[in-house]
């Protein structure tokens, strides 16, 4: 899945996100949300670059249960899970550089040194 932002839904969130062995970023978005569309290409690029983590996208209108469980009330919301644990929450569109810095801070030691350059 690395390098591609795959779709995830209520039915497979447990397997794909909570059961993942690598960190997973979940992009909670909706078709009508303008800032979500702005963030989309940024996340596509980061998914290709940060190959130690997975990126998935969840449509909150089609898949409302997971969004409610994690109390997602603003869009876009990015949640990062490591070993099933929520470790980072970013609400609202942010510049590519900010998102990248926050994600690189979660990288395994060896990767972080290479990617902070």
């Amino acid at each position, binding site marked *: 899945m690395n390098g591609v932002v795959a779709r995830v839904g209520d*039915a497979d969130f*447990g397997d794909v996100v909570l059961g993942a062995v690598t960190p997973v970023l979940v992009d909670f978005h909706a078709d009508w949300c303008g800032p979500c569309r702005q963030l989309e290409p940024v996340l596509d690029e980061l998914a290709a670059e940060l190959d130690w983590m997975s990126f998935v996208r969840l449509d909150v209108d089609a898949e409302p249960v997971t969004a409610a469980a994690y109390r997602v009330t603003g869009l876009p919301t990015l949640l990062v899970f490591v070993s099933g644990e929520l470790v980072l929450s970013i609400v609202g569109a942010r510049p590519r550089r900010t998102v990248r810095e926050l994600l690189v801070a979660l990288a395994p030691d060896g990767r972080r040194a290479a990617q902070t350059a």
Partner: protein
Amino acid sequence: MTTLLPGQAAAPAGPADLSMMYVLHHGFRRDLARFVAAARLTPLDERATWRALLERWDLFARLLHDHHHKEDEHLWPLLRGKVEAAGDLDAARVLDEMEAEHATIDPLLEAVRSGFSSLAAGPSPTAQTGLAADLARARDELGAHLGHEEQDAIEILQRYVPGEEWAELERTELRGGLAPGDLVRLLPWCVEALPDEVSRPLLAEAGLPFRVLLRLGRPRFGRLERAAFVFVPEDVGA
């Protein structure tokens, strides 16, 4: 007890012996760490395990509810009387916060029970996702509350309550009223994963009747523990 148990935030010095309070806090933290892992690692179709988790959750929730209820009924009112008489507004504010934090935890416990109940009835990916989120929230909120209590409320207790008064309160109201049937369930839960250097002196001090009740309760508790947390690595909550 000067050694901090795993996860314990503080042990303010003073005349009162808070050993049992810290043992209970250790049990709540240990359980929530195991429940969080179980919600993530237990396969959806393992119905027997989800049923055991529901039964184990009910034990946890009953003990936590009992602990908070006794604090709300006996400990906070005792402290409130003393800090108000002294005009200690900062301490009174901490007691308000303790009661408010208790009130926020109850709805989370209900939500978690509903999640376990649903998974015990049959596989539901959405229930598992909701349960994982609710449990993580319960662990974080209860963890923050216990830390706040250890840091600030117990510091107040140590300042205002003489050792003999605390011992009497523990004997009569906090530990009092427990029937042997309650102790058979409570004691194995208390000593589970407790470091030896803490459990050994506690049991020696507790006396023979307690040690007998512990021995009676251990097999059943151990069976439930293994059935509920069969997919959880042994080091979680240790």
